């Protein structure tokens, strides 16, 4: 009996109780799930927006503002040194061409009403395979000695040329020189020369700027041109739809 009594017997009342427990468990689970869900939602809503992803190391620019594709504004005259694939912009309002060909551009500053100011700029560019910057610089010094007497390197630290560069490519050569203009009567006015030579690996270029003007800040006027110098390796600005 006891064994028989120990056998579980399906009793309607007990079965109902089990169902109730299941229902309670189900409701509890549902409520718990709801509470957890709401909690997760609340946390998600309250949580500050996650930080933007850091810039990947391979993309140091980390996004650029979009720009449109209108053509670049050209306000000067473009000289193309076809021998080496370089180009430079100058402003005919104040610069007059003395001579030009596929390798050379010689300009003279000509500011209306300021005949006392003289400044000569001479650019030469050749394929890098044909001449190194140092060779171009040596040739230029020899050429200049034909018109400037006693041309020697100027070692006065006040006249030093710091950080030489052409078209934002660091110069291999950069130096100041001084001499005197050659006149029929012999040495004339003191003349100063700044000389730089550089290469981008595809072209080599040399630039000399000469003046007899006493204020050396005059040389700064040539910076406007040299900063427009574009080497064959320098890509044109990219355009992207805004």
């Amino acid at each position, binding site marked *: 009996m006891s064994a028989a009594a120990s056998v579980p017997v399906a009793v309607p009342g007990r079965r109902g109780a089990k169902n109730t427990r299941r229902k309670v468990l189900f409701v509890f689970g549902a409520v718990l799930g709801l509470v957890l869900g709401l909690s997760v939602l609340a946390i998600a809503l309250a949580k500050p927006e996650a930080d933007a992803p850091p810039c990947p190391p391979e993309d*140091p*620019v980390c996004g650029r503002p979009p720009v449109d594709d209108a053509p670049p504004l050209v306000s000067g005259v473009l000289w193309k040194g076809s021998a080496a694939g370089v180009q430079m912009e100058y402003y005919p309002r104040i610069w007059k061409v003395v001579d030009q060909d596929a390798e050379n551009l010689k300009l003279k500053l000509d500011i209306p009403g300021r005949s006392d100011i003289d400044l000569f700029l001479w650019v030469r560019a050749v394929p890098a395979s044909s001449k190194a910057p140092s060779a171009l610089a040596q040739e230029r010094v020899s050429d200049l000695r034909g018109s400037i007497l006693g041309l020697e390197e100027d070692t006065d630290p006040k006249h030093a040329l710091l950080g030489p560069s052409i078209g934002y490519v660091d110069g291999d050569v950069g130096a100041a020189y001084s001499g005197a203009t050659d006149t029929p009567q012999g040495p004339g006015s003191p003349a100063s020369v700044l000389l730089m030579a550089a290469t981008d690996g595809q072209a080599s270029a040399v630039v000399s700027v000469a003046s007899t003007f006493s204020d050396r800040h005059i*040389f700064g006027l040539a910076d406007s041109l040299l900063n427009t110098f574009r080497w064959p390796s320098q890509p044109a600005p990219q355009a992207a739809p805004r």
Partner: protein
Amino acid sequence: MTSRRRRGLLALAVAGLVVSAGSAALRSGGEAAQPPAAQLDRALGATHPAAIVEASLVLRREERALRSYLAAVADPASPRFRRYLGAAALGERFGPSAAQLQGVRRAVEAAGLRVSAEYPQRTALGIRGTAADVGRFLHTSFVERVDPAGHRYRVPAHPARVPAALARTVLAVSGLSTKPLPVPADVPGGGLGPKDSRAAYNVKPLHDLGIDGKGQTIAILSFDTFEQSDVAAFDKAFGIPADSPAVEKVPVKGGVPVPGSGETEVDLDIDVIRGIAPRAQILNYEAPNAISNFADLFDKIVADGRTDIVSVSWGICDSGFDAHPDRLRIERSIEAAVARGISIFVASGDAGAYDCQRFMPEDHRLTVNFPSSTPNVIAVGGTLLSVRSNGSYLEEAGWEDVLGNGGGGGGLSPANPRPAWQKDVPGIANKFSNGRRQVPDVAASADPDSGWFIVVDGKQSSSGGTSAAAPFWAASMLLIGQYAEREGAGKLGFVGPALYELARTKRPFPPFHDVTRGGNRYYNAGPGWDYSTGLGTPDVWNLARDFVAYLKQRR
């Protein structure tokens, strides 16, 4: 390369002499401390005993507590992040007590002097009296000198000393030299009218939304003054609305009665701001040209509490000045500004990586410009800007004019450590890094070939230099602040940390044009941060939208 550029007349030769070097914290630099260049000046004899002399007593403060506070307001992880203090609260919390201040006042008056300036942030106490009385009080005497340009000035004959009884409240004495030193960072050039700069840097969308500076205030720190007629002429020439607020002069230390050699600089600052934020109220805080007046100008701006944006286009070569009491005084005034939530945009100088060369052509040391080299400002470098035929942005190069010795200032501070927020952006840790402050933080058009149109003495001209770039950034940030307020994002506060954070992560609206060409005669521009252009130049509309998101995220 093709670009928009119109070359103006010759670059100005700016000659000057380096600042006197100090010796110890409790001293004021005396005549004996002058570097060799200053010895070129000529002594005129002792100052007349009855001549009026002014000085500043630099007050001690709760140094560690203030340092900790300044770090916390710049740290996004801190509960005190961006919780700035008012000037009075700052003074009460970190400055000497009211009783200590009263003690100093009594001692000053007992010496026959009077207190001439006092600020609620308690950075310093100005004193004034005869040369005899001030000399007795500070244990020194004074001599008159004249520099090669004919400027007469006064310096202490030997280092001043703080009276022993005040040593617990007063840290140092500054402002005893009246030698004119800060020089403007501008150069003549040609190019950008207001419409050009708004188009190139994408300011226009903000203007289209009515964000034009209305109801906003911006301060210019000046060592000269301007003519209202020049502002009116600029407004007329460039279509600035007729109902824009008149520029207000705020004199400090007596102000500047008539325009002098720095007038062009003041006009440049005003006109650049006017072009970007035409309806903003501009306050020109102006003081006589003396190094110590930097601090009084900053103190007055902080004490007045009228603006959160300041533009500075003046500076000196940062060399031999590390421990000078005037530097200490200036840096404390700037720190008070940061604690108050003010952003100070400072021109980084116009001699490239060789800032002291502007003062002495034979000085080839790598040097930077002060106060752009201090860690609590936003240093603004320079570029050459090129635009497209429709006026929109084409490209930029770091400003370097190697033949004319020009370029945007940049390099390493000789004295200040790198601020905690100047980190974690590509390029910031580089082969030159040495733990010191690296400048600049950002840049904008400064090469004279892409200079800014201005009106001086009734005539239109143009001018470049980083002193155009600094007010451009200040005015742009003012617009961004106005936009942020309108969007319910709150105030900008000191924006240095935010600029780096925005550059650190990819943004839906890329805020910076990264300048990768050019340099500054020594350091080349390159991908990421560099010593020529910092983080780069702004797309102002993008930066505005990013700033709003940034501020909302951190409220």
